[in-house]
């Protein structure tokens, strides 16, 4: 076939046939041949693609000299410019799994070349790369090699040819954690009725939405002397200056804004809400109903609190993903901490 896709393969010292634990500290090397699992993998490509060479590195060397190892490995990959990198499978080997995971992450992020690897579900390397690489699910030991290679080869072939992957359980890879919206054969109400009837008859059913697990945040210790404390005002109520200068979304916010409130005594007059999740009429009349700058400024005058922080932070909470909320919180928190803010009034809607 004229247009075979090119595969570069990564293995550790053991599968690279250098040696066992005693060779775990060898530096990375590159050979223009198919070594170890690369051979079995290549034969599973059924002529559609070809392994053009094998990268080998000792597990200890990689984990103890990550930067140097990655530099060498990324350079080899850049020079050979393969269509896809395949690593492992690492089964449940922790150091090997970490190497596969770190390499996968670097190759996808820095070279934008797709990666297929294989791991046991408990391999610590999985979390490093599962969201950006495709990780075939394997058994916990190398006894599963013969089963793993055809699955990895099939995944690699599809990706290299630009075909979309099917469901993880159908294709044999570990879910990347992305919840994708698709069309079902039946409308939602029909699926609900069928699910209920299955439950009532003690038949099997499968939820479409496993419950999320939440982080818990311990409350910060109390502020001992409010009269010396700087307090910042932060809201997810979508209160912004008129005209919404930073174009914050009215739902599913992709950003936050901060505005100087050091010279005003209240938000009323200059601010309004762009939040799409509640009746805006009363917030537009007096935006301090959502973010009480007016009261904070009064407390500042009375000396009850030391100071109102000069910037007010805001975004929209409705429909905003937890991923974005975590990002906004981290960014805003960092700024407030660096500014020496002691406490925050955080209002929702």
């Amino acid at each position, binding site marked *: 076939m004229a247009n075979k896709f090119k595969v570069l393969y990564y293995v550790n010292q053991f599968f690279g046939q250098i040696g066992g634990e005693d060779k775990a500290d060898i530096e990375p090397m590159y050979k223009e041949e198919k070594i170890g699992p690369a051979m079995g993998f290549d034969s599973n490509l059924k002529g559609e693609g070809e392994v053009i060479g094998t990268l080998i590195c000792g597990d200890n060397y990689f984990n103890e000299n990550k930067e140097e190892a990655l530099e060498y490995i990324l350079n080899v990959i850049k020079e050979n410019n393969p269509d896809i990198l395949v690593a492992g499978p690492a089964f449940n080997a922790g150091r090997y799994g970490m190497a596969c995971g770190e390499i996968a992450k670097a190759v996808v992020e820095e070279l934008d070349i797709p990666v297929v690897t294989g791991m046991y579900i408990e391999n610590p390397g999985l979390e490093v790369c599962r*969201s950006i690489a495709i990780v075939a699910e394997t058994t916990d030991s190398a006894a599963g090699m013969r089963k793993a290679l055809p699955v990895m080869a099939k995944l690699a072939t599809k990706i290299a040819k630009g075909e979309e*992957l099917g*469901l*993880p359980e159908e294709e044999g890879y570990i*879910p*990347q*954690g*992305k*919840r*994708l*919206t*698709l*069309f*079902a*054969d*039946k*409308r*939602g*109400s*029909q*699926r*609900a*009725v069928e*699910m*209920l*009837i299955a*439950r*009532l008859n003690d038949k099997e*059913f499968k*939820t*479409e*939405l496993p*419950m*999320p*697990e*939440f982080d818990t945040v311990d409350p910060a210790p109390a502020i001992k002397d409010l009269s010396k404390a700087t307090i910042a005002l932060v809201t997810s109520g979508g209160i912004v200056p008129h005209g919404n200068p930073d*174009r914050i*979304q*009215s*739902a*599913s916010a*992709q950003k936050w804004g901060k505005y100087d409130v050091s010279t005003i005594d209240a938000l009323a007059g200059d601010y309004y809400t*762009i*939040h*799409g*999740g*509640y*009746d*805006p*009429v009363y917030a537009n009349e007096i935006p301090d109903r959502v973010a009480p700058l007016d009261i904070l400024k009064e407390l500042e005058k009375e000396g009850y609190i030391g100071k109102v922080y000069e910037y007010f932070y805001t975004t929209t*909470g*409705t*429909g*905003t*993903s*937890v*991923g*974005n909320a975590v990002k906004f919180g981290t960014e805003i928190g960092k700024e407030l901490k660096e500014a020496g803010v002691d406490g925050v009034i955080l209002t929702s809607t």
Partner: protein
Amino acid sequence: MKLELRRIHIKDIQLGEETKVKDGVLFVNAEELISHLKEDSRIKDVKVDIARPGEKVRIIPVKDVIEPRVKIEGAGNGFPGVSSKMAQVGEGKVNVLYGAAVVTVGDIVGFQEGVIDMWGEGAKWTPFSKTFNLVVDITPVEGLDPHAHEATVRLAGLKAAEFVGEAGRDVEPDEVLTYEMGSHAEESRKYPDLPKVVYVEMLISQGLLHDGYVYGVNTQNILPTLLHPNEELDGAVISGNCVAACDKITTYQHQNNSVILDLYEQHGKTINFLGVILTPELTTLEGKFRTCDYTAKLCKMLGADGVIVSEEGYGNPDSDLLMICKRLEDAGIKTVLITDECSGWDGASQPLADTAKEAVAVVSTGNVSHVVTLPPADKVIGNAEAISTLAGGWDGSLQEDGSIKCELNAVIGSTSEIGYHNLTVKLY
């Protein structure tokens, strides 16, 4: 109660000199409709337009969708307590202009209306690309506050549907669907061995612009209440809300509530369907405890073996959904939930704002933040620019070539949590 929904299959809508149905074509006299609606002194201007399935037409910003009908036998007509006088509905005969819909258009508060594309990519995402849509664009008089504006447009839509529905009064239907259910005692005698099932329909009831209405009563002011399913199918429940377009229950979806219809389909076969509990979604913690406790109590009093709970909206109502679920499961009642998700653009975020280990059976109707690109339309009814402020759109959503990039949030009925559409979510 016995209700006949007598469907007259509508194959086209055209403007004409007389409002009538002839050979499956609905003709509408636009001038008569406009002057009828302008009897409301709060309305300054009305524009009427038509959008047909397959046409490269975009309708934006859409407030509500209503099915035009006329009641030819039995008490009540239209929407009692709202646009017509009070009556106990759910019994009798209704002629339905099936395949037609009245779509109301107009900025209310600017964030909470949606888009309907009649063709191609966009058509897949909304159930209302398949109806022949009579679009009623309402401009109120100046100086009307948003609440009065919302009420004006809400009433105008309902009145338009009643006005147009009259055209079906003397037309022979193409099919007749009969929905009949006796008292609980009668049904339980008929089906002693079938499991008893209740449908809990949650309605956003969070203040003006975010309310559902039952017989004209704002559901913000009700305790959870029991309905015969026929009542909802016969106009007892309407939408008054301006929440995100993707999962608001439009009036059309109340008239054709898919959970009710699919449960009815199984009634007497695999289940004994006992009825619908309307549950308001309130904003206060006290309100949530009261309504969730009360809902579970009603289910227990009815002797339910299984319950389907559908949500409206997302965010804090996720808590109500899961609180109800926990109470039902703790009482030994098997529960299935229907909800959508807010998993972010990449689908990698937690899907709900709350969690409960009791929620083991959940139908997902899509990620509201799933991003879609809708190609340019040949014709826009309404205002294409509206997308930049709609929930689900942003500044820049409207691209230079006229295409729209937005979240499903902005597409009417896309992630319907009464399961009216066919989206789902899978973990990749």
